[in-house]
Structure formats: structure tokens, C-alpha cells
């Protein structure tokens, strides 16, 4: 199994679990899903440019090999995890400040 594929999928699942564990429930909010859509829309040209140029060079030994345009599919799981972790922690710390 390819390492980047596993790690990217694992990070996406962990981000969803953290949202449950911290009871932030951002994945139940409309603003989260719209923001995710906006981020993915702008991800296409930026991630696309990085991988087309290429500025970042992916090793075929470590990812599944399927690309959307020039972007490895794993990058979408990776991006999902990165964005979700951030918004979950932002809401978590906001909530802690609010309750003090």
C-alpha cells in the first residue's frame, strides 16, 4: 500500500474524529462545508500550479498514481484534513475562551 495514500486518508479520518471528540461539530455547520468548497475551488489553480510546474515533485512510489489534471488525488484528502483540523481547533479554542 502507498504511504502517502494511507497517511492522507488517515489524516482525513482523524480530522473527522477530532471534530467528534472535541464536540466542536463543525462538520454539522453549513459555513464549514461552504468554506471547504471555496477552499477547494482556489486549491485547483494553486495546487495545480505547484504540481504542473512542477514546484513540488511527487514520488510515484508513494502515491496511488491517479491525478486530477496534475494534482494527485491524495492531495484532496490531505487538504481536507488540513483545513478541517484548523477549523475544528479554531472553534474549540473559541469555545474555551467563550466559556471562561
Amino acid at each position, binding site marked *: 500500500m502507498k*504511504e*502517502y495514500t494511507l*497517511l492522507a486518508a488517515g*489524516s482525513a479520518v482523524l480530522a473527522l474524529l477530532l471534530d467528534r471528540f472535541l464536540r466542536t461539530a*463543525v462538520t454539522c455547520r*453549513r*459555513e*464549514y462545508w*461552504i*468554506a471547504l468548497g*471555496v*477552499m477547494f475551488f*482556489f486549491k485547483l489553480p*494553486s495546487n495545480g*500550479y*505547484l504540481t504542473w*510546474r*512542477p*514546484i*513540488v*515533485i*511527487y*514520488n510515484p*512510489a*508513494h*502515491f496511488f498514481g491517479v491525478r486530477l489534471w496534475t494534482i494527485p488525488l491524495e492531495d484532496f484528502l490531505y487538504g481536507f484534513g*488540513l*483545513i478541517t*483540523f*484548523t*477549523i475544528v*481547533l*479554531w472553534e*474549540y*479554542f*473559541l469555545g*474555551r*475562551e467563550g466559556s471562561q
Partner: protein
Amino acid sequence: MNNEYLIVLAAILVFPLILSVVMPLRMYRHPGALLRAIAIVSAVYWVWDVLVTSRGHWSFNPSYVLEYRLLGLPLEEWLFFVVITFVSVFTYEAVRLVIRRKGG
């Protein structure tokens, strides 16, 4: 040009950064929460990135990055996570504001 990665980061950041100042968002009213979210997520992804870059998951084209490297990663790659986490919080807060103004 070897500043291309830096230019991509600047292009990603410029409008969110300006709008985050102009729009009445919650971001700068809670600097502690903002900094903690950015710092923790960046730290986790820095560790991930250093480990897998050394394992050869990906590499950085020397033609398009600056010469400054730390633990095998170009300066731009370190900045990448700070930029993306900031833009993530901004986008989420901006969408939230627009929804509230529409009365949704």
C-alpha cells in the same frame, strides 16, 4: 525563477489577508485562539512533512524555491502551513459572516 513558490504563497495570502482586516470578522478579536489553532496544526504538519520528505514522498524543485532550507524543507514549505491555516480560518469566518448577514 526560484521565487515562484513564494509568489504562489503570496497570491494565496494577499486577498484573504486584506479582507480579514476590512471585514468585521471574529479572527482578530480572539488572537489567542487564532494563534493556537495555526501553531498546533502547523506544528503537526511540519513534523509530518519533515519525516515524509526525508522518506522521499515528494521533493522540491530547486529551480523554483529559495536556497534557505531547514530540516530538508525549503523556507516556503514551512510558510505554506501558516498561510493555509490562516486562510482556512479566514474563509470559514468570512462565509459565516455572509450567512449571518443574509439572515441564514
